């Protein structure tokens, strides 16, 4: 082959974009429309579904990113969710006065430090967890599952020991409470905030992954870890960073969920873990976009089913997962070949 055969100017062959899964949440929302008696109810349900989906996405995105890069499925991810929520109560209960004040700024002055504190603590715990618990078992799936599950139990029990078995109330600040009229439909303020925060996290993740050097390295690491190392980058630092970020996202998601439910208890980690797993499986292990769509699908389906057939809502997640897997056995956007 001679040199002129290679046309340097030609565009690289692009991987074809797969837009079909992106339409699924829209299709689901539209499909539910005829069954719901009034359009205002539909708007309320859809916004509730979107808010729930965004919160689940914030929790699940860390898990899927960690799996994609490190090939570690952290069964202890739920513990970070619960710890995040508890850390927020540590800040918010002393600041209860600010929370109840009728001023947006005072409310924010309480909420923002609480969320930051939760993020910092769960991020730091993520660092410790990765170094101490997970590092010795890289590449051994069986042991990873067992050990992270053990970590989950221990973390949950420690939360019980320090905070007691009772539920801790975590009331919303005054300015986020209540709802406003949107046409005919009543929309809760906090749900809109949750949607905005979730969208911000999603966009920030996409930007970091697609537009920065770190993102490039992470994507390269998902494709081929050894090659990244061979090119002279310390993959372990990347691992630690991603694990911390993933844990911090779980913590943030925990704070959001705690405020949404207006209470916190130690069992919430294990309960949400199941939902997060379903979302991650639907989205395809390792895919952030898939995880986003999966979270929206699960949350919308749960909300619609909860309204139409309350009993059936218990198993909608599983049914949804089965249907998606029958269509694409590795989830919507399978990322890794592992």
């Amino acid at each position, binding site marked *: 082959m001679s040199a002129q055969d290679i046309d340097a100017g030609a565009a690289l062959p692009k991987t074809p974009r797969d837009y079909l899964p992106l339409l699924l949440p829209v299709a689901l929302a539209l499909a539910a429309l005829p069954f719901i008696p009034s359009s205002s109810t539909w708007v309320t349900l859809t916004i509730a579904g979107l808010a729930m989906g965004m919160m689940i996405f914030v929790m699940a995105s860390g898990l899927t990113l960690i799996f994609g890069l490190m090939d570690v499925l952290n069964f202890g991810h739920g513990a970070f969710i619960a710890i995040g929520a508890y850390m927020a109560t540590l800040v918010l209960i002393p600041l209860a006065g600010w929370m109840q004040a009728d001023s947006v700024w005072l409310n924010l002055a309480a909420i923002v430090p609480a969320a930051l504190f939760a993020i910092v603590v769960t991020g730091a715990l993520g660092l410790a967890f990765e170094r101490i*618990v997970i590092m010795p078992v890289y590449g051994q799936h069986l042991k990873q*599952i067992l050990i992270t599950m053990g*970590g989950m*139990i221990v973390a949950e029990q420690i939360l019980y020991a320090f905070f007691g078995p009772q539920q801790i109330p975590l009331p919303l600040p005054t300015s986020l409470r209540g709802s406003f009229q949107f046409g005919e439909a009543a929309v809760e303020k906090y749900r809109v905030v949750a949607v905005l925060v979730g969208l911000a996290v999603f966009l920030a993740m996409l930007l970091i992954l697609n537009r920065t050097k770190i993102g490039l390295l992470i994507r390269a690491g998902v494709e081929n870890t050894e090659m990244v190392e061979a090119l002279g980058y310390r993959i372990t630092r990347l691992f630690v960073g991603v694990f911390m970020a993933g844990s911090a996202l779980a913590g943030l998601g925990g704070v959001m969920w705690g405020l949404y439910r207006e209470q916190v208890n130690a069992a919430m980690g294990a309960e949400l873990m199941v939902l997060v797993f379903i979302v991650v*499986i639907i989205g395809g292990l390792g895919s952030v976009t898939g995880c986003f769509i999966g979270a929206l699908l699960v949350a919308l389906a749960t909300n619609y089913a909860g309204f139409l057939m309350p009993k059936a809502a218990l198993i909608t997640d599983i049914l949804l997962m089965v249907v998606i897997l029958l269509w694409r056995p590795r989830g919507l956007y399978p990322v890794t070949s592992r």
Partner: protein
Amino acid sequence: MTLPMMPLSGDPPRSRFLGAALILIVLALALAPFLFPGAKPLNVAAKICIFIALAASYDLLLGYTGVVSFAHTMFYGIGSYGIAIALYSLGARWDAIGLGLLVALPLAALLALVIGLFSLRVQTIFFAMITLAVASAFAVLASQLSWLTGGEDGRSFRVPELLRPGTSFGNLFGIEVTGRTLTYYIVFVCCVLLLLLLLRIVNSPFGRVLQAIRENPFRAEALGYRTVFHRTYANVIAAAVAAAVGALNALWLRYTGPDTSLSFNIMLDILLIVVIGGMGTMYGAIVGGTLYVLAQNYLQALMGTVSAAAGDAGIPILPQLFHPDRWLLWLGVLFILSVYFFPTGVVGKLRGGPS
């Protein structure tokens, strides 16, 4: 194979200590109604039998096939609920027990087949996640369908006349033999038979293939063994045995509810028993199950004493950490440590070196 080794399928304990411990455990369990009279010791003994058989069936999956399932309690629960619902709705009759088994065992096997075909094709980590999701959905379903399962309260039911505590068969060695004693022996004998069956399975050519898949799935596949088929088959067998054990549990307790059959805590108990006893040994389930149930019933009381003592001494936090409800905390720590440092468990240590 010498004749005494026949029931063990040519897989003896291979360690003098282990052999002695096993003989001691089996003898103690076999004579439990006469050695340790009273309701509580008999309950503990029955629970040990049940947990040994349950953990052994889980070992077939975790230890021999190298697959982590979190749905084992679901199958256990199907067996329990099968008996409970049949006896509750048909009354205390023997054919109700038969009918319950006839429905529950195939149902568990079928469900295991579907889950296996669905999720074992991709990778085992997928299987772990899907079983976790399915099992939690099943637990929610069982507690919600109260017209069938009794909801959170579960179902208390009457067992056939012969098995009731009031039925007396006279005295033996100064101890009254009652229907309860008979039930205990049914549980004991069935558990022994199930354990021997599992030993037979893991030492058959099929069992060898399972171990080959555990060690190196690609190689096993390259040698012509279909990994999906073998893993799914192992899952079905384990599920059927778990359902049978669940039926025994229901028969012993005369009650089935979410806490006694489906709770995630039981799943953790099984995991701990198999890991601490020794994965991939079958005998690990016997040692682990005995240690675990004994510890659960007698060490928890000790934790309460420690907690109270620490509270009196005015040490902060310690009373909470040693509170009997925090029992799982210490088990979790023990579990993590044993996965790291004793991956072969008690049995592996006793046998010395990797088996």
